[in-house]
């Protein structure tokens, strides 16, 4: 077992353990331990985590607050537990992504590792395309676009990305076939 696979298994075990903890105090303690173990990157990971969950957690929390108050079933500990759990799982995911080379962690399942590599490479390509699209829009726009223009631009951009994704997926599949991946002999 390589180092990356080991950390992937630790992560999966931690996720499983986290879902079995129902006491906010224990989950808070787990949060604290993870923050301490994360080392010098802990603040960066924490910022990233908070940015990722703030909208989702706020929406869910406010929704729960309204519904539970109306039904007189509000439980602060439960709300805290939900927020801590979502935050903790997100933090763990970011921590894993920063420490572990995921395709290498999946070395025990070569097809899964290939799939992940292709997906990641494709995501990078499409992100670059999306950024180019945004920059091109900015360079061709004299005044800030109206909401209607923004919607039209986003739709055009999404269409372009989708078209490229379809084309790239076809190319990747052909390349895999060309190199004999689907001939049933793969190592």
């Amino acid at each position, binding site marked *: 077992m390589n180092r990356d696979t080991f950390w992937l298994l630790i992560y999966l075990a931690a996720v499983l353990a986290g879902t079995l903890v129902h006491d906010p105090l224990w989950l808070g303690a787990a949060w604290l331990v993870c923050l301490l173990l994360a080392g010098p990157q802990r603040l960066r990971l924490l910022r990233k985590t908070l940015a990722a969950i703030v909208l989702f957690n706020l929406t869910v929390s406010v929704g729960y607050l309204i519904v539970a108050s109306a039904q007189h079933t509000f439980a602060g500990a439960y709300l805290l537990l939900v927020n801590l759990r979502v935050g903790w799982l997100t933090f763990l995911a970011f921590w894993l992504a920063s420490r572990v080379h995921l395709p290498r962690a999946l070395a025990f399942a070569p097809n899964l590792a290939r799939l992940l*590599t292709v997906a990641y490479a494709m995501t990078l390509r499409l992100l670059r395309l999306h950024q180019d699209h945004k920059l091109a829009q900015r360079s061709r726009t004299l005044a800030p676009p109206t909401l209607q223009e923004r919607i039209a631009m986003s739709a055009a951009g999404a269409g372009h990305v989708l078209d490229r994704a379809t084309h790239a997926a076809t190319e990747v599949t052909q390349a895999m076939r060309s*190199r*004999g991946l689907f001939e049933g*002999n793969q190592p």
Partner: protein
Amino acid sequence: MIALDGVTLRHPTLPGAPNDAGVLALDGIDLRVAPKERVVLLGANGCGKSTLLKILDGLLIPGAGDYRFQGEAVTQASLRQRDFSRRFRAQVALLFQHPEAMLFHPTVLEEIAFGPKQLGMEGPEDRARAWAAHMGLSKHLETPPYLLSGGEKQRLALAALLAVEPQLLLLDEPTAHLDPRATGWLVDFLADLDITLVVATHVLSLAPELGSRAIILGEDHRIAFDGPLEAALADLDLLVAANLAHTHRHRHGDSVHRHFHVHDWD
């Protein structure tokens, strides 16, 4: 080695396109390529060069006509037979225009070793290391391929293909994304290969470095010329008709005149 007879192919049209009968990509292509021959496939964008290479690699099956490789028919059915498919894939390799489409392994080492492992060749990892060294990729053995530069990806894709020692190498616009130094390296590298080459390009200046026989695909998707490269490059009318050269307006003081122009080859 390669025999195409009356090969025609139409790509299916996408929803919303005006013509639902399919887009003609190749029309009645007859072609013979002998072992160790070096063929340069010339043509403007959209004339069917990539489609022809994909047919030669068994990735697209023509709607009409026959393709035989070393005397054996390459069809949907034959490619489904494991023995034939394995033999064919071991002998024919295609370098895609965008090499990143070909890279699907977590590390450079695994990418190169994949082919030899699959074919049961001896010492796949040693072979991969040797090819990586040959291509100047030794320091990237554990790097994910998607993190390499464009030129490095091109070299990696070539290493991955050549590690299985194919007899026929098909290259689709191999210099399209390379800087001048990488282009020079690739041209020199290909010159030293002792296998059959079919190289698609529209860079006329490189053509003499890549092969001695030219096949020009016209915009009607048929073969407009098949013969010595020198003869093709000397025929300006042919090049203009195939959209490989154009007329260009020049201004000298007050006078303006037009003449033929091949931007990268004079």
